[in-house]
């Protein structure tokens, strides 16, 4: 395997994006930021891959205009996944591993606020016996949260502790759309919304976009003194049926984590759009108590659809670049109640040593 690192990251997150669902106008400054970080122009990028969803935009081929933001004369080596940025990154990582290219810029975008997000996402479900009754995302997460509470695996206080820590950390994240902790007690005093969930247990509807830059070997070293080397990358999917899954578990996360060496991870950015999901993920990854989880505030404070998973990678990479950590972990999720999951480790050396 070639040594590949994350060497660039840019993000925009907001409650209501006052712009088009193609998000071209959001992508232009993001790419500019990536060029500034790397010292590259678009011609230095060997491969492009994006992630987005037609149903978020409300129209077919909603991604085709996004390539305008690249500037595509001459034409580019490019692909698109109807998935989160993290999987676009995976496709690019594979492309680099084939040796065809040495560099890639991957991006994702989505205007969640264009529709009623929790209802739109009911279209992700089994279309014959689930979608026709429109189970919404918040409810599906609530069923999962209750299953864990009933099983004694967590309680509302543990969930509030996750929310409190996230909101507090979000104060240092200029992109967070929700921030400001008070106390666990104060959060627990807030009314229950979708029993057993309170509103702060659920990620806010978030618009946004993000981009990551990958480079192999010396191309990465040219960009940064300490590139964030992707020392492990693994993803798996579970069945969608809530009935056939143990909702308190995430086997695909467990399997992805088990494929990697998670020893020595200091910081973990977990894509948990609902507070209890962080608890599920921690357990499946076997993270020790001293692992710093979601210093960015995580998806609970801003969850731009189709970017939020990849943003975890960017946040985890940033901590390698800054020297704050020698080994970090990033996780991305997709589908209802943690159905599909990707885990990667980032390290200050390609060998992954501390």
């Amino acid at each position: 395997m070639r040594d590949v690192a994350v060497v660039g990251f840019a993000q925009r997150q907001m409650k209501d994006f006052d712009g088009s669902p193609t998000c071209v106008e959001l992508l232009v400054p993001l790419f500019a930021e990536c060029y500034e970080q790397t010292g590259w122009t678009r011609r230095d990028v060997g491969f492009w891959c994006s992630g987005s969803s037609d149903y978020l935009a409300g129209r077919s081929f909603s991604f085709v205009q996004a390539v305008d933001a690249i500037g595509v004369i001459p034409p580019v080596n490019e692909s698109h996944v109807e998935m989160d940025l993290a999987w676009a990154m995976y496709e690019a990582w594979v492309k680099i591993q084939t040796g065809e290219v040495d560099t890639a810029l991957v991006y994702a975008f989505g205007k969640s606020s264009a529709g009623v997000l929790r209802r739109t996402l009911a279209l992700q479900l089994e279309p014959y016996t689930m979608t026709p009754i429109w189970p919404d995302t918040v409810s599906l997460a609530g069923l999962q949260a209750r299953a864990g509470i009933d099983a004694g695996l967590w309680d509302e206080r543990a969930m509030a502790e996750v929310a409190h820590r996230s909101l507090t950390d979000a104060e240092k994240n200029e992109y967070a759309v929700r921030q400001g902790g008070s106390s666990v007690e104060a959060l627990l005093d807030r009314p229950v919304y979708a029993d057993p969930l309170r509103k702060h247990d659920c990620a806010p509807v978030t618009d946004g976009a993000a981009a990551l830059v990958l480079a192999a070997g010396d191309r990465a070293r040219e960009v940064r003194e300490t590139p964030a080397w992707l020392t492990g990358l693994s993803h798996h999917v579970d069945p969608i049926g809530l009935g056939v899954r143990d909702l308190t578990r995430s086997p695909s996360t467990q399997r992805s984590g088990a494929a990697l060496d998670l020893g020595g991870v200091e910081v973990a950015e977990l894509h948990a759009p609902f507070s209890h999901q962080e608890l599920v993920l921690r357990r499946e990854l076997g993270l020790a108590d001293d692992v710093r989880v979601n210093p960015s505030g995580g998806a609970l404070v801003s969850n731009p659809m189709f970017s939020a998973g990849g943003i975890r990678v960017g946040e985890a990479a940033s901590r390698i670049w800054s020297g704050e950590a020698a080994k970090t972990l990033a996780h991305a999720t997709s589908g209802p109640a943690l159905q599909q999951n990707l885990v990667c480790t980032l390290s200050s050396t390609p060998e992954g040593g501390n």
Partner: protein
Amino acid sequence: MSRTLSAPVTVAFDYTRSTGPVIGRFLTGLRDGVVVGARTSDGRVVVPPPEFDPVTHRATGGDGGDPYVEVGPEGTVTSWVWVPEPVKAQPLDRPFAWALVTLDGADVPLLHALDVASPDEASTGMRVRVRWAAERVGAITDIACFEPVEAGSGGLATGAGAPSATTVDGPVTGVVTPVSLDYVYAASPEESAFYRAIAEGRIVGQRCPHCGKVYVPPRSACPADGTPTTDEVELSETGTVTTFCIVNVPFLGQRITPPYVSAYVLLDGADIAFLHLILDCPAEDVHMGMRVKAVWKPREEWGTTIENISHFAPTGEPDADYETYRNHL
């Protein structure tokens, strides 16, 4: 004033789904007032029956055996959640609960709505039963919802008390699923400026500061180099038909009655053609290089839309020289 223009869009279609034999068997059961599961290779009774075995990957029932098992109309709640603000088309239009219910005889739960008045009335472990829809057609909505077993049987009762099947018989092979989603579509800031100018009767393009090309409508990124177009250029109302097609085919959702000519019009001063209608001459007279001019609707009908221009009509000028538009084909 908002930076961008926006307007509602509804994306709606009644999807016609063929179910295949397994889901068809489940839906046939619902139509007939019974809930059907299937025994999988690991010995569990799964509801709804999976189309393919989770372990062997073989098609359920594909080996000629009968894997189907009727389960009871009553069951136990294994998890639930409160829905304080139902969304459109959910089973109940008032606050309700979703519940995972393991029906008697099944090993895994089924998801459906639970009709209770408040979260206080829901609990894990509670006994519930199917409330059948008044009319059953062979769809998951034939189950109106679950209801607590203790509650007075106000609706159509379950099990042996279920009403007999509708007059339709034979296996269910398809289901119609209406999907209607409401969106707010926003134009980009550059497009919004264009449409606002159109509302004043002006056609305004923008020049890319990098390559110098004039785009109409303007773009958030010049597709050649990724730079937003900036400098405004007021364009002429006359232009050249570069190429076109005559649409003879009617289709669902069509807003203009065929036949009509959909043409690329290269306005004088622009570097890109845009699509519009050509009228005021027989369709067969429209040709490449034809000179055309915008015909505006009456001013009182104007809005922030390119439809302010009703169509383009021939100017009667001589055709444009091929060389003037050959690079636009």
